[in-house]
């Protein structure tokens, strides 16, 4: 070790070299600490105050939370999130898995097709929402086109229907994301030990059994990532709803994020809005903390 020689005389340059990594890391850590966690603490605090149009600092305890759960629109928003979130996750995973299995069959021009499947993901949810709004509009979209083809009694007016409008959001969101989920599963499929598959095939396992017994169990990590990514996207959903239905008809498609925004800025109820934000934060934390924890343990 001829180099210990240089290490034994720590000059200012060496000390700089030692301190530099921490020095250059600190701005990023500070930014994240202040602008994300510091601000979240502030939101927490606001949710316990009597803030209306501007922040006020009169402590009201759990009042805002109690009020929040009495508001029917919040109830609708939470119910919608459960419907939307579960359908979105299930359908995306199912389609994503099927598409991944299809693309894994050594088909021609796979790279090109994969890119096509992924294309919607590159678009903004706002664009997706606006485009699907027209497609689903009974007057100019799908319904009008199919009627034009001669099927006069065809109706598809979900977007104007209070009961069904939430499902149009599922459709648009699934269109946007399933190709992306496909990519996650495809990466998982490519990581599966092909020897094991061959062995099972030689033993006479049917294709279905092969996938059910060998492939899908090995895709567990991919399912986990897909679930976490999709779940947090569902809870954060804001732009798609704003563009597609604007939360309507009425409040039929409000989600927590749109509820929070409208309660703050159109009804000037900052305290209640903050309370709803805190609940969303806690929900996401409940999903990602265990995930990150397991990631952390795995990689150590």
């Amino acid at each position: 070790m001829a180099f210990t020689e240089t290490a034994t005389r720590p000059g200012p340059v060496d000390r700089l070299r030692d301190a530099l990594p921490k020095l250059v890391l600190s701005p990023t850590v500070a930014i994240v600490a202040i602008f994300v966690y510091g601000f979240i603490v502030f939101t927490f605090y606001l949710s316990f105050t009597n803030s209306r149009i501007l922040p006020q600092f009169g402590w009201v305890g759990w009042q805002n939370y109690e009020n929040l759960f009495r508001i029917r629109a919040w109830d609708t928003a939470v119910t919608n999130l459960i419907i939307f979130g579960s359908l979105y996750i299930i359908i995306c995973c199912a389609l994503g898995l099927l598409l991944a299995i299809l693309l894994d069959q050594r088909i021609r021009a796979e790279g090109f097709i994969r890119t096509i499947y992924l294309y919607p993901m590159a678009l903004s949810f706002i664009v997706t929402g606006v485009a699907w709004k027209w497609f689903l509009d009974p007057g100019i979209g799908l319904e009008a086109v199919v009627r034009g083809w001669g099927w006069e009694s065809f109706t598809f007016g979900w977007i104007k229907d209070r009961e069904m409008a939430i499902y149009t959001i599922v459709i648009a969101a699934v269109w946007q994301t399933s190709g992306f989920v496909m990519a996650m599963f495809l990466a998982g499929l490519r990581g599966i030990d092909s020897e094991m598959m061959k062995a099972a095939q030689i033993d006479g396992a049917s294709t279905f059994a092969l996938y059910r017994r060998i492939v899908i169990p090995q895709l567990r990590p991919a399912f986990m990532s897909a679930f976490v990514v999709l779940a947090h996207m569902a809870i954060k959903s804001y732009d798609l709803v704003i563009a597609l239905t604007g939360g309507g008809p009425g409040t039929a498609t409000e989600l927590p994020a749109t509820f929070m925004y409208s309660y703050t800025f159109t009804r000037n109820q900052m305290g209640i809005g903050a309370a709803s934000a805190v609940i969303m934060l806690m929900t996401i934390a409940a999903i990602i903390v265990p995930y990150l924890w397991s990631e952390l343990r795995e990689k150590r």
Partner: protein
Amino acid sequence: MARAVTNNRKAINTGLAWLIGLLIFFPILWTFLTSFKTEAQAINDPPLFLFFDWTLENYAVVQERSDYLRFLWNSIIIAGGSTLLGIVIAVPAAWSMAFVPSRRTKDVLLWMLSTKMLPAVGVLYPIYLLFIQLGLLDTRIGLTIVLMLINLPIIVWMLYTYFREIPAEILEAARMDGASLREEILYVLTPMAVPGIASTILLNFILAWNEAFWTLNLTAANAAPLTAFIASYSSPEGLFYAKLSAASTMAIAPILILGWFSQKQLVRGLTFGAVK
């Protein structure tokens, strides 16, 4: 015989994959085509596919009506500015964590990454109030900073995963050969880091370009980017199909081009590095 069956099945699978691809791509394709039709042709029965009189009139109308170029310019400034700003702050941080890791590095990384998953509504009030105080509402500089802040964790994370792929032995070798820290960074590290940085820039540019929560809520007339432009067409107000299609084609045109090159980065970034 067995071979023939495999080939058959392969052809069927390929056909099916193409069909699904067409189905997925159809809304984009149809919007694109419709934007070149006249309003009458747009609602023609039966629908016209390729054989119509291609016209650019819709684009002219949209530009005249809502000054597309101004929105486009705002999008470029905001997405580009926030990306570059983020990179400048994140490269040293990612470098530090990738090449001089400490016991806490993994924790710090995951902690940062967790913030990217949190909903924007959690920090809406403080940022909104701060913007009012500082007079940053509806300014490009304000939006640039906010988008940099919210995307910083993902930039750091992406850069970190790319930097980790650079073999540390090369750096050690350079150090042994007597390279100073400056030389090490300039001549050894930088050339190898450029592809990763470029990928990160591409991904982040798209994320910033598509970001809608903040751009819709913090801008009005002056700093509004293309997300606000397309949202303004959400209630069509006398515009019809062909013009709406032209508007959305204009809104997504840059992404349609960038999107083609960035699929890998998108998947990698949006899965938080779970898929490479």
